[in-house]
Structures are given as C-alpha cells and as structure tokens.
C-alpha cells in the first residue's frame, strides 16, 4: 500500500473547496515551506498526499496547494 502524509488543516480546508480530479482524488501542485515545489501530485480525501517511494514529509512541511488543470 502506498504511503501517505496528512496535510495541514489550512490546505485541507482549501482542497475541500476545490473540485476533484476524479473519484476521491485531486491532482495538485504543492509548495513546501522550504520553497520546493512538488508537481503532478495526488491528494486523496482532500487530506492526504500520496507519497512516492522513499519520500518522507511531515504535515507542517507543506505551505500551499494549487489544483492542476484537467
């Protein structure tokens, strides 16, 4: 099973007001607090980021989110 990390509350709140990309998920670009940008990422339940293999992030690593266009 793919690992995931819970996003911070302010990002969850934002995602809940954005449309889904498919049943139960959203395609997004995330910006971390250190400036790193993660592109073409999948969020499930507007709450969890699906991690790639060997990725490790903490909830507070994430600063903002943008929905990818379909």
């Amino acid at each position, binding site marked *: *099973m*793919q690992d*995931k990390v819970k996003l911070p509350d302010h990002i*969850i709140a934002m995602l*809940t*007001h*954005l*449309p*889904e990309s*498919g*049943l*139960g*998920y959203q395609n997004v670009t995330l910006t971390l607090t250190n400036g790193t940008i993660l592109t073409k990422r*999948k969020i*499930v*339940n*507007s*709450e969890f980021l*699906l991690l790639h293999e060997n990725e490790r992030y903490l909830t507070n690593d994430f600063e903002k989110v943008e929905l990818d266009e*379909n």
Partner: protein
Amino acid sequence: MIYKAFPSLTELLVSKPETGMGYQVFDAVRKGRYTKVRFIVYNSELIIELNDNLDRYKLKILNEGYTKIFSQSEFINLEHPTLVMRNELSNLRLFSEGKMEDKGRHKGGTGAVDNDEIYSNGEDIFVRLSVYENDRRIDFINKKLIPGSYATTEDDYLTCKSFNDDPVDRYALPNDEEIEWAFYVQPKSHDKYHPGIVQPANGHNGGGVEALFDNGTSDHTYFKKTTY
C-alpha cells in the same frame, strides 16, 4: 424475471434485424395488460425485461448457463412487439458488448469533465465509493455532496459488485487502498451533473460510469452509508 418466447414470437423476431450482435430490443405489451414494456431478447428466444435488474439476470445466465436458464424459464405472452433501433438506446451495456472479462465496463466515451451538464431526474441514485468513512466530499450536516465531487451511478456500482470487478481499476483511482464505504445520494430534479465514462488514468483502465457534480447536490440528498 427471465422468460422464453412462444415459437410464434421467435419466428417473428428471427425475421427482424438485430439491435446488436445476438440480441434484439423491443417494446411489447403483456397479454391482458395495456402498457408497453421494453424487453431484450437473446437468440430471438430468451427474454428479459429491460430494467435495473438486467445486470443481475445477465450474471445469472453467465453463471448458470444459457441452456439451463432457458429450460427453466416460463413462457411470456407478448403482443404488438416493436423493435427498438440502436440509436434510440443509450448507456445500454449488453451481452455481446459486456463479456464477463470486461466486467460490464464501457469502452471509449469521454470523461464527465468533457461532457455537458444535464439535470438529474430526481429519481436516479448515485453512489460515492470511498476508502474513508469521513469522506470529505460528503457534507454530513446538510446531507449532500459538496461542489466539485464525483460519484458513480447506483447501477454501475452494482455492476461492479456483481461482476466482482476491481473498483480501483474501474474508476481509475490513484492509490490501491481498499474501497470500504458507499455513500448513497439521490439528487433533486434541479441538481445538475456531467455524465461520463471513466477514462484511463493513474495506470488503470477505467471504463466505469462517473458523474461530476459541479455544484454538488441539494440538502438532504445524501441518505445512506453502507460498507462496500
């Protein structure tokens, strides 16, 4: 119910064109009644009424065998049969196009996001399948789907289950967590949605039915939660 045609009806149907490979769809009136009902007939002899139970009867035939089902079925007396042309049918998935291997999935089509919005008829039921009991696209207080949410039709959900299909592949989901919950929604007749077919994505084939509710659904349209 599954029925068999009287020889006279079979003889008539054999003389008519097929609707698709191996089957015909026709409207007819049951003897003694007044309303036309739509049926599908296989091999001009095995008849099933076209309603929400079609997929279950198809599965019964697949599981038990055509010959056995035919021998066990009762005759049905139908009058005034009228063939239905293919272009009058929509979203009809039938034997020759939905083999067991395909598990009742749809080929081609376009995703909901690419199709125009239509109004719900106020009666159709949609099901949102989820890994999460606290699915965040369900407003549990106002009992509705929130804007920008996807669901499938109850019919497609039941088809997925009856064929023991893999919902992760059918709905092209991005993770392999097990779907555990089904949330039932019956939109009002003024609620709109984009209908579509799940397109291949996330390494999966899609082929299930999807519905995208840009504006969500009205209050008190979410009415039930069950395990998947």
